[in-house]
């Protein structure tokens, strides 16, 4: 028996999973239009590779990954591209973002798919490319591009592969039903990933003990495969990546690091299913299992929906009563966000659409004072002190917030859930995090501006010294001219006394002027040497703590000063000879 570690904190909200598990995975009729946001994942937006008016086939690539952390997007059904423009997307702020609109032709005709059933012959980079090309991103809700996650595993040997089938959010049963019905394909997916990662020593499937059917299905298919199915007591948020890794291995991911840094890769079970489809069947990620739940819909059930299906289409097919609905949530009740409109499309990370009635999730009660009862601290899975964070968030005390590790908050909502005073704690933390990030950005911008200003100062100084040197040179030239002028322009027909006087003057000038000249040149040399010394010192400082730009610029000023010293020395020697 594998040891299970008990993660700190956590809450036990009613799980409400039975409602959507009464029937098998359903299919929806094809919607009239599909809307595909270019950003359905963590990272850079995908780059469009089709144009308006083009006819596309089901599975055809519409946009490709534009960076190492990005994911491609494919046509979920055949039809015409009717628009590429900003549309309202599923986002907590209700914002718009670039989307591709497909008007379906109803034929649902596939492009030719190149599967790779013999994946054992493929090299890890080939498999990763297949997965990247299929646009697979984490289907558990976060949407991290899977190929990038598997890429990270190459920096360090992966010894533990964890499949996250926890599904700790109430209401959501998408992973559960997928495992019940297609456990064999998930195991195939695990085999592919295991091969890709160089056969990790330990392969675990983590699942909460409130899914006995799914556990049985997994156990059935895992027999003799070396994959271990580990069930543990139900507690929210055990399905958080950090929490699950701790529960299964007792290891904590150090703050600011990734699981891969500990040789662990953690993937959601539905993502594994998508990887199986991508590799063995050659089918890109164009559909997912989404749970529809809540009392405002007569039918609660899981659907295999096409990515891009408008939420309204899903609701319309299931006898939705808007007047009964207290709010429309994408995701689960703990971490999901409310949708202001049902016109937005379902995306790769849409685990659930929850349409609760007013009795099911009533409007929030008014906020009362925080009495620091500490229930939130008991519930926090990261062992933070939410009550202190709350006070500091209200006081905008960024220093204290960071000292209390605000950025280790995973926004699971357990604190707000237990708060007897109905304080929207998570909202306060989100807003404070954004404030701190903004302040950091502002500080960085100011630092760049300062750097520029300093660079300008040095540049001006350099120009000054150059000008001064030129002036000096000019003066020397004019002085030379002055000394030589009496000899060249001798007045003719002058008296003998005048000639003698002139000769005397010439003599004194000849004697005095080299002295003066040398003294002057020596002073110039000294000044130039001083400047060189200063410039060298600045360069030394710059090599310790300044940017590359600054260093280069200091180096330039040292060179300039050196040149000046050389010039001065040369002139001095000329004069002395």
């Amino acid at each position, binding site marked *: 028996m594998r040891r299970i570690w008990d993660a*700190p904190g956590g809450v036990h909200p009613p799980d409400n999973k039975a409602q959507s598990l009464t029937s098998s995975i359903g299919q929806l009729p094809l919607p009239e239009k599909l809307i595909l946001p270019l950003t359905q994942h963590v990272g850079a937006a995908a780059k469009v590779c089709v144009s308006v008016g083009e006819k596309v086939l089901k599975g055809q690539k519409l946009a490709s990954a534009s960076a190492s952390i990005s994911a491609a997007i494919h046509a979920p059904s055949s039809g015409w591209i009717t628009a590429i423009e900003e549309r309202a997307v599923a986002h907590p702020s209700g914002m718009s973002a670039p989307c591709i609109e497909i008007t379906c032709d109803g034929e649902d005709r596939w492009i030719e798919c190149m599967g790779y059933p013999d994946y054992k012959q493929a090299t890890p980079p080939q498999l990763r490319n297949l997965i990247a090309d299929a646009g697979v991103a984490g289907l558990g809700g976060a949407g991290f591009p899977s190929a990038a996650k598997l890429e990270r595993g190459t920096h360090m040997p992966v010894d533990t592969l964890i499949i996250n089938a926890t599904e700790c959010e109430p209401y959501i049963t998408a992973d559960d039903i997928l495992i019940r019905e297609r456990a064999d394909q998930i195991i195939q997916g695990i085999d592919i990933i295991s091969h890709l990662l160089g056969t990790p020593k330990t392969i675990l499937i983590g699942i909460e003990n409130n899914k006995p059917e799914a556990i049985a299905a997994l156990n059935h298919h895992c027999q003799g495969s070396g994959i271990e199915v580990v069930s543990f007591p139900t507690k929210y948020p055990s399905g958080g990546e950090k929490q699950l890794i701790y529960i299964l291995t007792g290891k904590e991911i150090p703050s600011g690091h990734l699981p891969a840094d500990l040789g662990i890769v953690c993937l959601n079970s539905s993502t594994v299913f998508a990887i199986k489809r991508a590799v063995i069947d050659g089918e890109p990620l164009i559909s997912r299992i989404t749970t529809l739940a809540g009392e405002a819909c007569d039918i609660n059930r899981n659907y295999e929906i096409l990515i891009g299906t408008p939420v309204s289409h899903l609701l319309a097919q299931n006898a939705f009563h808007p007047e009964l609905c207290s709010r429309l949530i994408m995701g689960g009740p703990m971490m999901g966000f409310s949708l*202001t409109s*049902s016109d937005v499309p379902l995306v790769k990370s849409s685990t659930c659409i929850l349409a609760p009635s007013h009795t099911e999730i009533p409007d929030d*009660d008014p906020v*009362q*004072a925080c009495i620091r009862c500490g229930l939130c601290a008991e519930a926090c899975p*990261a062992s*933070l002190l939410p009550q202190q964070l709350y006070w500091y968030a209200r006081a905008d005390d960024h220093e204290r917030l960071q*000292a209390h590790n605000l950025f280790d908050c995973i926004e699971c909502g357990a604190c707000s859930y237990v708060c007897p005073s109905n304080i929207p704690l998570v909202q306060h933390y989100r807003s404070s995090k954004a404030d701190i990030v903004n302040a950091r950005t502002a500080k960085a911008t100011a630092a760049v501006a300062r750097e520029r200003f300093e660079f300008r100062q040095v540049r001006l100084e350099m120009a000054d010294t150059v000008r001064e040197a030129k002036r000096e040179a000019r003066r020397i030239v004019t002085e030379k001219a002055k000394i030589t002028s009496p000899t060249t322009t001798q007045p003719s027909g002058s008296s003998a006394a005048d000639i003698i006087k002139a000769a005397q003057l010439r003599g004194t000038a000849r004697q005095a002027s080299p002295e003066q000249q040398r003294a002057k040149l020596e002073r110039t040399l000294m000044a130039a040497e001083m400047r060189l010394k200063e410039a060298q010192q600045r360069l030394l400082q710059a090599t310790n703590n300044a940017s590359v730009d600054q260093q280069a610029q200091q180096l330039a000023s040292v060179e300039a000063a050196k040149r000046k010293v050389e010039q001065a020395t040369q002139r001095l020697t000329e004069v002395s000879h």
Partner: protein
Amino acid sequence: MAFKQVSSPHGHARQSTGQIMQLVLLATLPGLLVLSYQFGWGLLINILIATTAAISAEALILKLRNRPIEFYLRDYSAVVTAVLLGLALPPLAPWWLVVVATAFSIIIAKQLYGGLGSNPFNPAMVGYVVALISFPIEMTTWVTPVSLLAADVSHPGLLESLAIVFAGNSPVDGVTGATPLDLFKHSDGLLVEQIYQNNSLFSRASFAGVGWEWANMAFLIGGLALLKARIFTWHGPIAMLGTLALMSMLFWDGGSSDSPGSPVMHLFSGASMLGAFFIVTDPVSSTVSNRGRLIYGALIGLLVYVIRAWGSYPDAVAFAVLLGNFAAPFIDNYTVPRTYGHSKSRRATDKEKSE
């Protein structure tokens, strides 16, 4: 159609602040019943006067502060303060004493700081200390426990009690007397054994002191019920009681004439249990982390013992708690728990490393 925009999580556990306060009130019932049995109607009258005064004072200030009165009264925090104060003040104390103490608690110690959640000191204890310092005679006159009354004397009835409280009638001789802690403090030069033999407060007690031992036992039961209901954690109360027991063991001195008393006497006398489970656990004025609560509780236990043993007051819970309240923010700075993914806990005063 447009839907409501609300931030996650959606839905809450069904326990409100008002309900927590009501549970606390419920948990004081065993103690209240035992105390009333032992000392007569006085305590109930105290509580009624205190509750009326607290609600009126709270409503008045809320009105002055332009806050919705009914909404804030429903958090029951004023009632909790009033009940705790009513339990702590001597039975049959004059009505104005109770009113002054309660009004001070609510107006000065709570509302002037910003109301519930913002007060640095436990309001009930502030009210108690103000009364104790201002009216020492009234505050140190306790009623004799029922089992120690002479055969021809009994506690005043309800009407008689009301007359004492409101009209200032004097109670019958023999109805008032010292408390065990009081008696112990003023029995200098006697061996502990002699004190126990000479005074019926001790000689007729089951284990600690007549009247008080069972009242403390009842508060302990109420407190354990709250602990079971997870209203607070064990850290504060156990640290306080543990330190109190440890100190009284260390200085027990074999029961010599200098001994400040046995651990059992200290644990089950005065406001030990009421303090440990109903005052130390006040979340607003205490520390926030479990480690902090251990230190906070231990500090209060230590101070209770120091004041009882070597100070000039027989009981010390109120003073000790207020001193603990002073220290709480400081303790909080050094007891931030270790966060997931960090090797060490940080100080609350840590500065972020500049990059």
